[in-house]
């Protein structure tokens, strides 16, 4: 899982196409969620999958598709690009096969590492109530501050979106008057 997370993160940084890097970041997040699960924090794994892999990645993908950034970074000629792609495909397949074999090898040889400690798992289930209790007693003030932060972020995003639209509208009306 760690190998998978590291490989995915490397692809995130090195990929030319933003869509590819967003999808590999998704893979990295899933690997991290499995690590949380193995460490005995079930709620963290669920939150990671729901918030990161579900919400944030969809937001990123949506913006990339909206702005049509998929090809904007590649400024090579068409021949170069096809050559690059043809060269890249076997590399990608080789990396995938290597990851698969590594995970198989890890499962074969070190079965105990992939096993969840039963004690930890039980504590994780019982830790849900402890988590909630701590969050609403000791960490009540940060919790409320987080709600204020979310509200202000919502307002900020709405203001940004509306201001852009009104500026565009004024630009368009100025062009019309000219």
């Amino acid at each position, binding site marked *: 899982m*760690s190998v998978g*997370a*590291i490989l995915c*993160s490397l692809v*995130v*940084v090195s990929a030319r196409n*933003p869509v590819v*890097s967003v999808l590999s*970041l998704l893979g*990295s*997040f899933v690997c*991290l969620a499995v*690590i*949380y699960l*193995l*460490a*005995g*924090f079930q*709620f*963290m794994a669920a*939150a*990671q999958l729901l*918030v*990161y892999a579900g*919400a*944030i990645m969809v*937001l*990123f993908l949506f*913006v*990339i598709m909206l*702005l049509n*950034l998929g090809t*904007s*970074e590649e400024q090579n000629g068409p021949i170069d690009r096809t050559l690059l792609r043809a060269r890249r495909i076997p590399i990608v397949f080789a990396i995938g096969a290597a990851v698969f074999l590594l995970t198989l090898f890890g499962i074969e040889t070190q079965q*105990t*590492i992939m*096993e*969840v*400690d039963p*004690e*930890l798992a039980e*504590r*994780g289930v019982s*830790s849900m109530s*402890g*988590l909630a209790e*701590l*969050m609403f007693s000791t*960490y009540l003030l940060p919790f409320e501050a987080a709600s204020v*932060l979310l509200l202000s*972020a*919502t307002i*900020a*995003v709405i203001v*940004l*979106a509306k*201001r*852009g639209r009104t*500026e*565009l509208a004024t630009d368009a009306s100025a062009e019309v008057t000219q």
Partner: protein
Amino acid sequence: MTVPNEHILFLAAILFSIGVCGFFIRRNTIMVLLSVELMLNAANLTFIAGSRMHSTAAQAELSGPIFAIFVILVAAVEAGVGLALVIALFRRKQTVSLDQLNELGD
């Protein structure tokens, strides 16, 4: 025995370094935001490892996961506001390349 805590910390360090590299190397604003997300994830992993390190068999230390949840919340807010800024920039300039957004320095 499960995964030792040192390995988790090493993984977090490696992920954070990759994020820092991406943050400085890439010229696309969205890629920079993605690198920031990667770094926040590494921080989360560190919180989890610390919580595991300090919890005993009888009592689980739960401050780490709570801070990690707050970090996830902040990451969500950051992604929302950052992407709104990117869209506003793209509307004005028709580009998201950081090399072409340097008017403040001139």
